């Protein structure tokens, strides 16, 4: 790895980090705007034009609010919880290919921080350790509601991880690789993977909703039963971390769904446009962000449409519906591969 490449990677890392933070900030604005529109309201419109400065105002409010740590809580773990959750949310962005890459002279600068050949497993492992942030925070609060919320959150996340992994296995069988870059590159030639894996996509989508604790799976923080769920005792920026991390998770899972199932940065007839390499990369990145926005819209649209599940319904859906469907999907994929002779 040359020095220029190293510097480039560091810059890219910072950019990915900044973009996911900025996207998360503006998703709070978008969420409020969209919620308002779906309810025939206008939404935030006071801070700046169209309320565009609202996230900044929210952030300032969050930072300057009084910070409270409950007396009988476990101080270090109380701080560790949200920090860890935030860390896990930010870690996933590095394996996502945001575009094909910049050609500068001889070297190609890829639009991906790192292309590890087990990208998908990396994603799964980061997702699976994200549970700790919630569990530690909920337990350290020393509050019944927080603990119950944390236990709910963790069991929900573990349950849906299984179906999520199973849905991905069918995809991996089809593409024959665990690297996200490879998977996206393969979709350049043919159709997007969603054409071949519609069931897998739907399972993955539902699991993504559950993993990000979004409605209709926002059981961990259901106000009617558990006050604020695992972050009942949190205030100020530590609460902000939890809420923020949820939006980052949403952004990243939208990006993952776009790259795994919807062709990533590829778009139809991209090579027929006759664009220069770097211009094409810019357009591709824009297209990728368009796809991400589409998924974020879907996330929010569903949140403001569907009511919350009951807890037993949630568990039934995860274990008795999604998991068998995912296994069936694997079997079907295997048979199709066998009969079409795509087995290596």
């Amino acid at each position, binding site marked *: 790895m040359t020095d220029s490449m190293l510097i480039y990677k560091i810059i890219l890392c910072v950019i990915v980090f900044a973009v996911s933070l900025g996207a998360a900030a503006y998703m709070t604005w978008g969420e409020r705007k969209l919620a308002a529109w779906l309810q025939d309201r206008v939404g935030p419109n006071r801070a700046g034009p169209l309320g565009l400065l609202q996230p900044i105002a929210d952030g300032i409010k969050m930072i300057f609010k009084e910070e409270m740590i409950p007396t009988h809580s*476990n101080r270090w*773990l109380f701080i560790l919880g949200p920090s860890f959750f935030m860390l896990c949310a930010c870690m996933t962005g590095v394996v996502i290919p945001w575009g094909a890459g910049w050609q500068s002279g001889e070297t190609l600068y890829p639009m991906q921080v790192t292309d*590890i*050949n*087990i990208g998908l*497993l*990396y994603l*799964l*492992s980061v997702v*699976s*350790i994200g*549970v*700790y942030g919630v*569990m*530690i925070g909920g*337990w350290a609060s020393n509050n019944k509601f927080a*603990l119950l919320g*944390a*236990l709910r959150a*963790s*069991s929900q996340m*573990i349950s849906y*991880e299984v179906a999520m992994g199973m849905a991905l296995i069918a995809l991996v069988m089809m593409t024959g690789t*665990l690297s996200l870059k490879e998977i996206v590159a393969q979709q350049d030639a043919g159709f997007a993977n969603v054409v071949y894996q519609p069931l897998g996509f739907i399972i993955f989508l539902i699991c993504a909703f559950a993993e990000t604790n979004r409605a209709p799976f926002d059981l961990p923080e259901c106000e009617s039963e558990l006050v604020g769920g695992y972050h009942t005792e949190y205030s100020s920026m530590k609460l902000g971390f939890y809420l923020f991390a949820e939006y980052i998770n949403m952004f990243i899972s939208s990006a993952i769904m776009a790259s795994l199932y919807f062709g990533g940065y590829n778009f139809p007839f991209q090579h027929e446009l006759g664009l220069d390499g770097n211009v094409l990369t810019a357009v591709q990145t824009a297209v990728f962000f368009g796809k991400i926005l589409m998924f974020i819209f879907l996330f929010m649209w569903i949140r403001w449409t569907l009511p919350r599940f009951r807890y037993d319904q949630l568990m039934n859906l995860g274990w008795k519906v999604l998991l068998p469907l995912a296994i069936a999907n694997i079997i079907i994929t295997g048979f199709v591969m066998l009969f079409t002779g795509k087995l290596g």
Partner: protein
Amino acid sequence: MLTEYAFWLLSFIAIFSGIATIISKNPVYSVLYLILTFFSIAGHYFLMNAQFLAAVHIIVYAGAIMVLFLYVIMMLNLNQLEIEKRSNILKMLAVASAGLLLVILSGAAHSADALTANPNKVTPAGMVEDLGIALYRHYLLPFELASILFLAAMVGAVYLSKKNLNETQA
């Protein structure tokens, strides 16, 4: 050079948090330190180019097993543990036997000094394919047996954790 520093750092973290695991009063701290140990072991796997294994290690150990431990400890509310009173003789015996084992094992490890890495046989990247081939060609039977073991463990765990066994029989 960088990898060497990484090795020493990871080893230090692993041993430090391993010791912290067994001396922490609070079981939740123990679990968290053990997770830290597992992370550093995963880091070692990465250093040894066993990336697939590292990821699986994190998913299985940190993502599933330790969550179960944490879950049980939180559910049983074990954080106010009664002070453990183990007699001094037993403590001495524990130290002695563990130390003896340590000496024997490190002696064995020291004699392995002659074994150095064979540079000709270093496997290239793409551990996933190699592992897959090995697992599904040479080790297919143990693999299937392992899944049967899982099934048995699953049934056993569900049966054991039923609230009241008499109720289910009735």
